[in-house]
């Protein structure tokens, strides 16, 4: 746990903000299923629908961090189950590299999560959000990448 985070946690009015890019076919449907199943999870996440996780340009993730997101989730179909056959393989390679780059620049790579959530995994979606919120609470707000406003 980083010191900063611990301090933030003390006076905890701060809430981490998560931007989630979800592929239409699996993960967005998984988030829908979490809703249909009335699974409760923290309200910290804001969802953007994309056709496929491979549509997510690292530029979008950067922009989210610059504008004040504390965490970003990119979720798509499980490898092998992509609606567009191979899209998520590109996502996996691309974002793995991008994460390394974030690490290299001194930005906490844990702030970016890439997860596979199928249309049947409402529970997994809810758990992922809970987990991210916990982790981000420990990490504290993103200050490194944030543009001063």
């Amino acid at each position, binding site marked *: 746990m980083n010191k900063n985070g611990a301090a933030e946690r003390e006076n905890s009015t701060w809430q981490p903000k998560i931007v989630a890019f979800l592929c239409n076919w699996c993960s967005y449907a998984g988030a829908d299923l979490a809703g249909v199943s009335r699974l409760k999870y923290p*309200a*910290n996440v804001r969802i953007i629908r994309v056709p496929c996780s491979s*549509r997510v340009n690292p530029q979008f993730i950067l922009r989210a961090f610059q504008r004040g997101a504390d965490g970003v989730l990119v979720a798509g179909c499980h490898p092998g189950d992509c*609606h567009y056959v191979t899209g998520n393989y590109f996502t996996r390679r691309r974002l793995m590299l991008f994460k390394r780059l974030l690490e290299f620049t001194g930005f906490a790579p844990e702030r970016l999560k890439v997860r596979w959530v199928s249309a049947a995994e409402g529970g997994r979606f809810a758990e992922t959000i809970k987990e991210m919120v916990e982790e981000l609470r420990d990490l504290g707000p993103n200050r490194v990448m944030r543009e001063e406003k």
Partner: protein
Amino acid sequence: MPRIGVFVCWCGSNIGGVLDCPAIAKEAASFPGVVFSTDYKYMCSDPGQNLIIEAIREHRLDRVVVASCSPRLHEETFRQVLRRAGLNPYFLEMANLREHCSWVHPHEQEAAQRKAVDIVRRAVAKAARLTPLSPGRIPVTKRCLIIGGGIAGIQAALDVADAGFEVVLVEREPTIGGNMVKLDKTFPTLDCSACINTPKMVAVAQHPRVKLYTYAQVEEVSGYIGNFKVRIRQKAKYVDHSKCTGCGTCWARCPVSVKDEFNLGLGERSAIYIPFPQAVPNKPVIDAAHCRQLTKGKCGVCAKVCPAKAVDYNQQDEIIEVDVGAIVVATGYGLFPWEKVYGEYGYGRYPDVISGMAFERLVNAAGPTGGKIQRPSDGKEPKTVVFIQCVGSRDEAKGKAYCSRICCMYTAKHAHQVLEKIPGARVYVFYIDVRTFGKGYEEFYRRVMEEGAVYIRGRVSKVFQEGSKLIVKGADTLLGEQVEIAADMVVLATGVTPAEGAHDLARMIGIPVDKDGFFQEAHPKLRPVETHTGGVFLAGACQGPKDIPDTVAQASGAAAKVCALLFKDELETNPMVSRVNEALCTGCLACQKVCPYRAIQEAVITERIPGQPPRERIVARVNEGLCQGCGACAVTCRAGAIDLKGFTNDQLLAEVDALCL
């Protein structure tokens, strides 16, 4: 500047019970571009839709945000509303307040309210950047592929073919009929399964518009709705069916004898065989793994005796390619492999502990014992039979939480059959609850109890052999007592699982499976026979455990959907495809490599720069008929020359900005 209208739906109390909809509408009125905003109880209802249309006219709206449920549910509904109001239907953006907010955050209303406002702000930001889109048109191939020749596949094939379309029916076994032809009688009416199934098998095989491939497998599916390309592997049968008359000389003379899978190992068959006497087609195949001629090069009896000279040991697998416009998946189910998991029932070690399907074969007049109920171990008639329900169903410890839906009824049927065929027999049924949900089912169950079946509520903890008896130990939870029964035979109601290979098939076609491995329907209530892949439909037990009436109903439903599709000459294509800005494209074609549909082609353009001679240059060009709109190419392009319509860089960045305020 666009004129945006925001329509916040209460969805009755689904949204309105948690979120303050009027407050959301009020806040939305201040977002850039919003000139009108309101809330209403049910936006998707007729008055709700009219409210939108009137507001579009009155306030000259040209972009619409509906804040309601998931776009996966109602995007199409509201696009039609825009169309009716004379707007381009792609000027719609939805904000998902129900699935993504009110339903999941009822416990933190304040945070949920803030989130809802953000969700609407995101939608407004995107709406402001929407451009009109118009779909292209593609032709429809008027032919349907049906995978799986059980009762589901057969029924769907007959319905589609009777409506006038060509059908290609592919079955991997040597005969069609599926699990239903193995059954003896069918609950609750006790009519003979073969009597209702085999005439349909014959009808489908003889139908002029049905092309039947048995002993065949679908190997590759490409393309998209209206225009699928399918590769089918016809496995070598080693018998030329165009010459074979089905006389049976060969299988009578074949010297090989192996356990017969059709009878679940209770009987035997030869290496050249038909699975059962009423098989369709009624012509044999050679089981290459057991044929002495094919494995050792020594025998050749069947070729020698065949009067039609139909046996051909050199036959090879054949690849067949067909174009179809629609696909019905009807691959049915498998049965829970209790022998691997249920140590307490002996792991399949005791021959007289059998599965329900094995019982069907035993009791079947066309089965290995001619319909006599006999113990597999010594052929004696069992006097005491114990049935155990929910073996691999409703058992989270074994990883199967779901109810298999048919076992209660087939166990009642089996209990009845024992009591009917064996005078003085005693029948015990261990159950958790009895679920008899269908028409006439409860009455049937009561009748079986009146006939003398003893139902014991409780689990069996152990089955073991003692002499010639099987001792069944269990609990009667209603009486609160331990019970012990010395049985002659134990029949396990093994639960339903997805058919073997179902997951591979799902991947090949590109449809999802649910958590239990059954194929996932597009919507459990409103689109139960469709999948999320356009043009692919589901029928029968492949979608979840089902009895025959439900299977047949769904198969006819799938057929109706197929016909509705094939009746069209053309389909509108998804206009959310990618587009290359040729001025920016450097011609590197990196995009081409990531496109799963080979939608990006190389094109040569001539550029005219004033004062210079015209210059030729390579650029990427998207074939809109092939592009499915994933957007992988847009991210790959380093020059930023490709963008995906409907999900443009500009739109997505605006969404990010709106959410990170």
